[in-house]
């Protein structure tokens, strides 16, 4: 029988931790060494499922003093680096499950009337729109991570992903930190040869003549991916030297043996590393999949396995609501951990956090009744000064969250003037 190993927390994080001291970006920033002088802007997303306990999330003051609500208290030391939003809504479309739509369409750029064949208002998501602007600078177009620990195949693809190239074409998230590490930092692992890609690309193109419209779209996904990987190979090759210099060590413990916070934080570390080393400028992390009523151990927080989704529906019970609020706060703590990590990465006179827009949120405000209005949203970082922090931005009631998405894509270089049901870009500065 298998024995559980005692895990030395420092040991498994050490590999990733060493990079913190490496002033990789300094080289890139230094014009004398061929750098551009200005640190690039990055965008990252941190998704929590099933909404939050409203009376611990919301806070009294509006417009006046910026005070953190009980759930947001773990961000107290970062208060000057964050901004909090309210009254931003999504429009829920009838016909599909409230939860699936919450996650899969959280970042969707579709107007509520634009439905995919599966019935979702799902189109290229905001992170991918941003990647359209930034991908040309980095080896990897974007990075999608998920801390989904479940193996019971209970829910569909729509509950497990927030990033989409388009409907039907998911930017599938990675769950295994070891695989993430190898993909990003072990150059030898990227052994895909360009000659094979050339061949299959040619082969794929020769298929086009023989396909109907629907299948052409599918084949296009394949072609897109081949082109992405081709570019990626060249850029990874260019960066191979600097990546090897990092001398990073792979995580030593298989992820299923990690405690919950270790798992989330390890994924967070990897995300920060990817952004810090400019391997990508766009990343997202789903802390857990939407709904998925599977009991889960949250070590150190609850003795028994908990079912997050069930709790959200039972929060009328004070006892349950209190426990649920602890879980919300726990998720905010994990977000705070990653944010602090960004803050510690120096980039010239600034930090990684200063150059990043790192958004925390959920596709539901309250999971109790599947409410899509007044979504919980916290932004950390200022994207190179584009976002004013240390404040609470209360929009007019009924403001589409697409206004925020539009503003974020514009900060990242997009020229688009409209996104989904946006009315105008939210003023972030």
């Amino acid at each position: 029988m298998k024995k559980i190993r005692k895990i030395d927390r420092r040991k498994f994080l050490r590999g990733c931790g060493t990079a913190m001291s490496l002033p990789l970006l300094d080289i890139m920033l230094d014009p004398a060494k061929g750098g551009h002088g200005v640190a690039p802007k990055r965008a990252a997303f941190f998704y929590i499922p099933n909404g939050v306990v409203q009376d611990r999330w919301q806070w009294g003051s509006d417009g006046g003093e910026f005070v953190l609500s009980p759930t947001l208290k773990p961000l107290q030391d970062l208060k000057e680096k964050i901004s909090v939003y309210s009254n931003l809504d999504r429009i829920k479309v009838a016909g599909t499950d409230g939860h699936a739509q919450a996650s899969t369409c959280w970042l969707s750029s579709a107007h509520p009337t634009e439905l995919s064949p599966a019935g979702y208002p799902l189109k290229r998501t905001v992170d991918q729109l941003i990647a359209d602007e930034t991908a040309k600078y980095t080896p990897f177009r974007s990075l999608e991570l998920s801390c989904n620990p479940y193996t019971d195949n209970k829910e569909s693809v729509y509950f497990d992903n927030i990033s989409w190239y388009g409907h039907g074409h998911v930017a599938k998230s990675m769950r295994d930190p070891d695989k993430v590490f190898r993909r990003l930092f072990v150059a030898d692992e990227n052994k895909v040869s360009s000659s094979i890609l050339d061949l299959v690309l040619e082969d794929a193109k020769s298929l086009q003549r023989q396909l109907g419209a629907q299948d052409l779209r599918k084949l296009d996904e394949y072609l897109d991916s081949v082109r992405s990987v081709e570019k990626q190979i060249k850029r990874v090759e260019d960066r191979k030297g600097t990546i090897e210099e990092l001398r990073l060590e792979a995580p030593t413990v298989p992820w299923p043996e990690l405690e919950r916070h270790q798992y989330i934080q390890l994924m967070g570390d990897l995300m920060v590393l990817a952004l810090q080393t400019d391997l990508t400028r766009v990343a997202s992390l789903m802390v857990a999949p939407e709904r998925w009523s599977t009991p889960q151990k949250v070590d150190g927080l609850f003795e028994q396995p908990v079912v997050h989704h069930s709790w959200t529906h039972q929060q009328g019970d004070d006892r349950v609501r209190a426990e649920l609020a602890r879980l919300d706060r726990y998720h905010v703590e994990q977000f705070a951990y990653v944010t602090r990590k960004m803050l510690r990465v120096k980039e010239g006179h600034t930090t990684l956090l200063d150059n990043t827009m790192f958004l925390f949120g959920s596709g539901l405000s309250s999971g109790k009744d599947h409410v899509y209005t007044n979504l919980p949203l916290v932004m950390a970082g200022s994207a190179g000064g584009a976002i004013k922090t240390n404040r609470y931005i209360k929009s007019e009631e009924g403001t589409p969250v697409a206004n925020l998405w539009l503003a974020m894509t514009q900060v990242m270089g997009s020229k688009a003037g409209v996104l989904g049901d946006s009315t105008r870009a939210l003023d972030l500065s």
Partner: protein
Amino acid sequence: MIVRTFCIFLIFAGTAFSQQRDIRLPYPLNGVYEGEYHFTASKPARVQGMSHYGKDWSRDAHLLWDGKLGDTLELSFLVRFDSEYDLGLRLTKAPDYGICQVYLDGEKISGAIDTFALGVELASLTELGKHKLSQGVHRLELKLVGASQKARPFKQEGRFLLGVDYLHLKNLKPKAAGNMPGIELVHVDYAELHQVLKTYCSDCHHADRREGKVDLESLTTSELFLGDLQIASKVIAVLQAGEMPPEGAQQPSLDQKSQLVLGLQNYLDERLASQQSLQPVVMRRMNRLEYNYSVVELLDLKGDIYPLPEKVIRSDFPYYQPIAGLMPDRLQLGNRTLGKNVIEKPILTGVFPFAADLPAENGFNNRGEELSISALQLETFVDLAQAVVHAPEFNDYSNVFKALFVYAGSEDPLVVARKRLSSLLEKAFRSPVPEELLNRYATFFEVRLQQTGDFQRAMKDVVAAVMSSPRFLYIIETVPEGAPRQRLSDYELATRLSFFLWNSIPDDDLLKLAREGKLSDPKTLERQVREMLLDPRSQSLSQNFARQWLRLDQLVTAVPDSKRFENYYSRIGCEYWKLGLQSMLEPLLLFESVMIEDRPILELIDSDYTYRSEELHHWYRAEIPFKSRGERNRFLPSYQQFNRIELNDKREGGVITTAAILTMTSSPLRTNPITRGAWVAGVIFNRPPPPPPDIVPEIEEDDAVIEAQGLTLRQVLKQHQTNQSCKSCHARIDPLGFVLENYDAVGRWRDNYRGGLPIDATGELFGEVRFQDIVSFKEALLERPEVFTRAFSEHLLSYALGRELEVSDKLAVDTIVRNVLANEGRFSSVVVEIAMSYPFRHKQVVEAENPSEEIMEVLGK
């Protein structure tokens, strides 16, 4: 007689869909109405197989019924043509059978018929005389009027049995009927149907209220009714299932209801037959089980390329041998504990499975819309292909290593490679290999050979490239010239078949048939399907279809409370091994035995045997399988012996009442009747409930707490259904869950709740059949074999096609169901009927209405 109130006439459908026709009541073409098939019968009629009593019974079965003296067995049957008929009735005789009198449409047409006999035998034909019968439904009644003095009562005093083998209708004026091709649809005037809809439905479904967004009042013509086929089909389904009108509302009589269903159905069928539309299948990427089997087939490997959690049952001994026709009685099996995060050792060094694809909601993980390739996944596939061929173990692992990768002899290596590639490409891409395609890969080989100077190396590289091509990774059906809908090419048919039955690319035999253009011949196709079922590779239907259909993976993460259900775990306080997880094997083994022994699929509802390990059997008996804790700690997680066990109690048997299903649909501290009901609705009836509403009331998670309030779970749930929309949906789901309430949260039988409160497992099915408990629930399902047969066929067809079914598939499903029922519901007949069905053998192309820019760009290149 209600039939006369409707204007009924015959419609002759076109010939194109001649195999696709149906009416609610089946009727025979030869005038022999089989007791077990052609009637709708009153309770408690059931089908009894008679082959063990001799070979006299028509189709080896009869309809068995029992009642008290004075009770009547009511049989409805459908007459095709206005005509005069000579009626004859064939009954069964036995020691506990009674005396009956026969009535036709309320009129007595026989004297007393005594069906007593010392042994079980078939009575001679009872002449019932000549009668004029109109087209439509008629009623035959057998009134139990007495019993021979020698007859012994059945179960209790004054109760006797009757058995109907068949009713024969000899048409005395056959010319009046003409020479029918057998494709008639019975037609009822729509105005009459609408009148019934208006009377019973328009209170809620009128223009202003539009409950459920349906306004039936305004659908005054059949054209309007057929304006939205989805809604039309939904209306029929809820009427048929007795879900509408809801409880408490004024109900149409049973006759009115069946006429309404029959009539509306025929309008829908007629429209579908004339439309002949077909939902297209989107090209899809292989999932990881399919990828594994395809690579194994392509390179003739000795085993899998990576460990697969999809394979729940593990065995060193190849027990799955369908050619034997019998499943062994004793099996040494292991169980892959998917959920326990066991990292399995790789099979080939450096070859790892890619991430599992998630199932569609109420479906399978093989749908194009949900299976794409991101940059990350493309990288994975290209890496994976290279990892396989370059794995250190590869050369010994592939049976075609020498034939494919080794160069020996004096021939030009390029010529050798080209020859080998030609057949490899045909197999990998499941298509003929045009010169251009062959050149592409041959050139790649040539370049690699020049670069490396190593034939083997260059060959491995080109094979890896083949395995990375979309032609290999996707299941593609090409656009035919001409009509947007065509028959599949033989190669495409071979591919659909092999992915359906083997989760793999076609093997050499199948390819040969495709190459020779023989596979599309119906006789060859059927023979081939049957041969494929007899191949051990058909086990993937259990590994992949059955596992997903039953949603069995969900058991992996079930965590019954470790204190209350201590026995579920092998060790308390840590969960390395859940003893209870071995229950996962039981439904899969039952499924496999139904496949191997070609049993009726209804045995998945109720079987008189099952497969259990000793611990599992103890489990159901709520006995502690181990004498002491110490012994439990020594429980061997890797292998148990599973034995075939006879069951003689309907509380056990079939898949629904297995511990696996009952546990995974429970919460840690109590059963979850709504989850169970939703499971039964989706899996057993293929009528999954709509997504839950946004406002869901809270229900206490611990049944001990509920009971302390003096309430049962059922009472609590009832209290929470506050409005009509909750009620009408839960009226459908809840009884399907509460019927399982006699099983606790880990699937063990209980008569009462732990605190002593009684369990209420009663409910109603199809809006007319009351059931008391799981036993009468199963009996009700067995009495309507078409219900489960349809649901199961739909699930399997959807799996076979890789898409969701649509209204346009209805006629095809009707045909499948009818033919399967005519074949006693044998498993193989479901598979054969699906493979022969119209949607399986045809493809439909979608023309872009407004091609998007990206597609135009692609086309331009």
